[in-house]
């Protein structure tokens, strides 16, 4: 289990390989990488030249650890990893990596999606986009809230 909040990029291959290294019970490794797009998330056609990710140091790690512990309680995971970057990022840059290793593929897929849905609605990060019309804070999306609510109750 690991949660990392960092400014630097990460090595996808090395991180994923480490999750199953030496553990012969891992049959399934599901992962997700989020990247900066050159267009605003809601598809209003506004081009994005860069974004800055602000976060709440301390609370971020706490929330990510709580989310990860919840995933491990719900699914039989051998290991799992969340890396979230902060600072200034450009289109094509990686923002986040979530990866789950399990004996079973359903558990690996579900836990990975659960972690992404919760991270989008619970982890204290905020995106400031740079567009030709100036900087603007990205607004939270109802669809993300709805996605996270699927996992409740």
């Amino acid at each position: 289990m690991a949660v990392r909040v960092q400014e630097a990029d990460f090595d996808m291959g090395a991180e994923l390989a480490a999750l199953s290294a030496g553990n012969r019970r891992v049959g399934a490794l599901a992962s997700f990488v989020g990247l900066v797009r050159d267009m605003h998330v809601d598809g209003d056609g506004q081009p994005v030249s860069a974004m800055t990710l602000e976060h709440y140091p301390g609370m971020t790690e706490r929330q990510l650890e709580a989310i990860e512990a919840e995933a491990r309680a719900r699914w039989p995971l051998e290991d799992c990893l969340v890396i979230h970057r902060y600072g200034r990022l450009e289109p094509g840059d990686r923002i986040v990596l979530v990866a789950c290793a399990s004996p079973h593929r359903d558990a690996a897929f579900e836990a990975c999606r659960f972690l992404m849905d919760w991270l989008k609605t619970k982890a204290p990060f905020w995106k400031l986009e740079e567009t030709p019309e100036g900087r603007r804070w990205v607004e939270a999306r109802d669809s993300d809230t709805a996605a996270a609510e699927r996992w409740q109750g």
Partner: protein
Amino acid sequence: MRLLYFAWLRSKIGLAEESVEPPAGVTDVAGLVEWLRGRGPGYADALANLAVVKVAVNQEYVPFDHPVGPGDEVALFPPVTGG
């Protein structure tokens, strides 16, 4: 009491953090927000619509009726947009 502001709440208030000593009548988040609104137009603007303000006390999400006291770290910020 230590206050932290993030994203556009920080921009509007013009501060990332501050230490305050609210009057004794301020006992919960709602009371704190009401008191902060009176501190200036930046605060009033940032805290005008509480539907888009989230609160954490000591780094845990809480509702507006959650108690606050002198030693607490209280953070006010918009809905998160990471991931």
